[in-house]
């Protein structure tokens, strides 16, 4: 099963490589990875999506917790949560396709953020499924380039991941 694990870790050089190294070293799998500092500049938040059965996920969270730079973590998929990913896509936009891309973007509530005579750059946010669906819809038109941020997430309700 797919899990989204969010980690608060020390914003130190090398901390990211320890997390990534752990996945490689123990033969776990990273589907997406996303990391940036938080409002507290000494902390980074890293979100990783991974796939594994319960036993594997238990080991992953235990090993992550063991890393000295990891302060706290949560498996968001254990509870209700909001998952978002941002994607920018360059698609061909010539002739009839130009309108078609615009219409599809509107349906997906995506925005066209850059324009040339021959292409659109579309920005879209949503969960990974929505982004995949948009890519599928764009495929016949011609996708030139895709940039995805990887999944970020946060728990619903009162639950807070903080120190």
């Amino acid at each position, binding site marked *: 099963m797919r899990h989204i694990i969010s980690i608060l*870790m*020390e914003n130190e*050089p*090398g901390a990211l*490589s*320890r997390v990534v*190294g752990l996945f490689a*070293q123990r033969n776990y799998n990273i589907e997406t990875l996303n990391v940036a500092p938080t409002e507290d500049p000494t902390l980074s938040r890293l979100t990783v999506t991974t796939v594994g059965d319960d*036993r594997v996920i*238990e*080991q992953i969270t*235990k*090993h992550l*917790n*063991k890393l*000295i*730079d*990891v*302060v706290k973590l949560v498996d968001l998929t254990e509870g209700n949560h909001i998952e978002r990913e941002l994607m920018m896509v360059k698609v061909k936009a010539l002739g009839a396709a130009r309108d078609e891309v615009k219409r599809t973007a509107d349906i997906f509530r995506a925005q066209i953020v850059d324009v040339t005579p021959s292409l659109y750059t579309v920005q879209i946010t949503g969960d990974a499924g929505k982004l995949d669906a948009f890519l599928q819809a764009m495929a016949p038109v011609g996708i030139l380039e895709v940039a995805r941020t990887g999944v970020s997430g946060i728990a619903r309700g009162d639950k807070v991941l903080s*120190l």
Partner: protein
Amino acid sequence: MELLSGADMIARFLQDEGVEYIYGYPGGAALHIYDALFRQDKVKHILVRHEQAATHAADGYARASGKPGTVLVTSGPGATNAVTGIATAYMDSIPMVVLCGQVMSHLIGDDAFQETDIIGVTRPIVKHSFSIRHPSEIPEVLKKAYYLASTGRPGPVVVDIPKDMTAPTERYEYVYPKKVKMRSYNPVTRGHTGQIKKAVELMLKAKRPVFYTGGGVVTGRACEGLTDLVKQLGFPITTTLMGIGAFPQSDDQCLGWLGMHGSYESNMAMHHADLVIAIGARFDDRVTNNTSKFCPTAKIVHVDIDPSSVSKTVRADVPIVGPAASVINEMISLVQGKEIAHPEALGEWWQKIDSWRDERRGKLYEPSEPGEALKPQEVIEAVCKITRGEAFVTTDVGQHQMFAAQYYHFDKPNRFITSGGLGTMGFGFPAAMGIKKSYPQDDVVCITGEGSFQMMMQELSTCKQYGIGVKIVNLNNGSLGMVRQWQDLNYKSRHAHSYMESLPDFQKLIEAYGFTAIKVERHEDLEPALERAFADNNELVFLDIYVDPREHVYPMQVPLGAMRDMLLSKTERT
């Protein structure tokens, strides 16, 4: 307020931390530190002949004393040479701090002379690592390094020190930090009381219980408590290779050690148990054999300080995350005054165990006769006898290691010093040096083979420089015995590169360093040679003992089988 250079801070910190010996080798990036060490005399530096030996020596000291070992190496090759020793310590959870010189900060990333990203290289084999970014952080970072290395589940910590951080011209305030706090590191201090109660209930109700304890009991200083608990309950106990001596092996309740070459009765008891109480052990593949056939009728209680060890390879029915000592003490207080529910069943269990013991009694190996080459097993028994079972015994890796574990009997912890997890050939001799330096009154014996010894024999020179009187027992069978054994069993005796042509004349070699070597070729030569070797506690003596090269280590678990599936000799199996 005291102003010190980074290098002087390091020397001063090591003094304040109570470090007595530091093992290392100088080089460009570490020279400021070496100069600072030279200008003081509290911390004694032992110059090894290869950085790997420095790590093994510090490791040996750490295993014997329970305190972190300290290593100092230079950048690049100095640091990479230390890698095998760091990995060895990591696999066996041994506290160690490795200080590595590094090229000047402004050169990092430029492929400078003797530059290696040692933080990157060692990342998977350290508990944690630090890079010094400003000289003023040195005291706190070093304190954190020792704190991390020695608390929780211990392990090696690497500190990378760019040369400009130790420059003599830059001075900063030095205060010894008595304590450090890290918000991201809080090792557990006790186990969950409810879980401990559950475990004790199972223990009191068990009919065929067995304790299975590991290195965590030794590093967690829980051996006395363990002995009390096991005695009170009257249960059998088997230990892992790393846990040898945590419970006295001469005691009737001890079944020896378990696993691939463990005792017959240990492996049989594990297989038939209805309750396995694992403490500070990690269900390693050399213990469990095939996990899907492991202990089919047993419930499993697993106590470990590292949550990631629990249910890693074998699922625990009652997981308890906590330090062995405090969990055991809670168990003792819960057991006190209570009766076990099925004393008659425990009696039958012991009868069964004794019958397994009887089955193998006197059948372990065939002793040699006068005029013949010795059997390696009887050499170990003789070494045990002459040292009254009280020596620190280090080993390398292979058949001799297994024979040492099987035939030397340990009643104390921290005495059997072996690379259990990584299986590092070359470990034994430098580890013995590190122990002897700190325990000069004790007998320190390195049991080795001609293959392993040649991996670190340059350290004879270190022993000469510092007058380190370890005893080296070389079980010379002219081949890489364990490799050869596997080739006999699995490759129709095609001995691909498992024999050593052109062995040196060890006697001449040892004498070249000014030490005594004794060659033992026949049964009757052993006793006088041992007497001579152990006559002077401070003298390094090398015993080159020719043993029967056809001997195999048994029992040996059958691959992919259960605990009870063992070869018992070349012709028998369970």
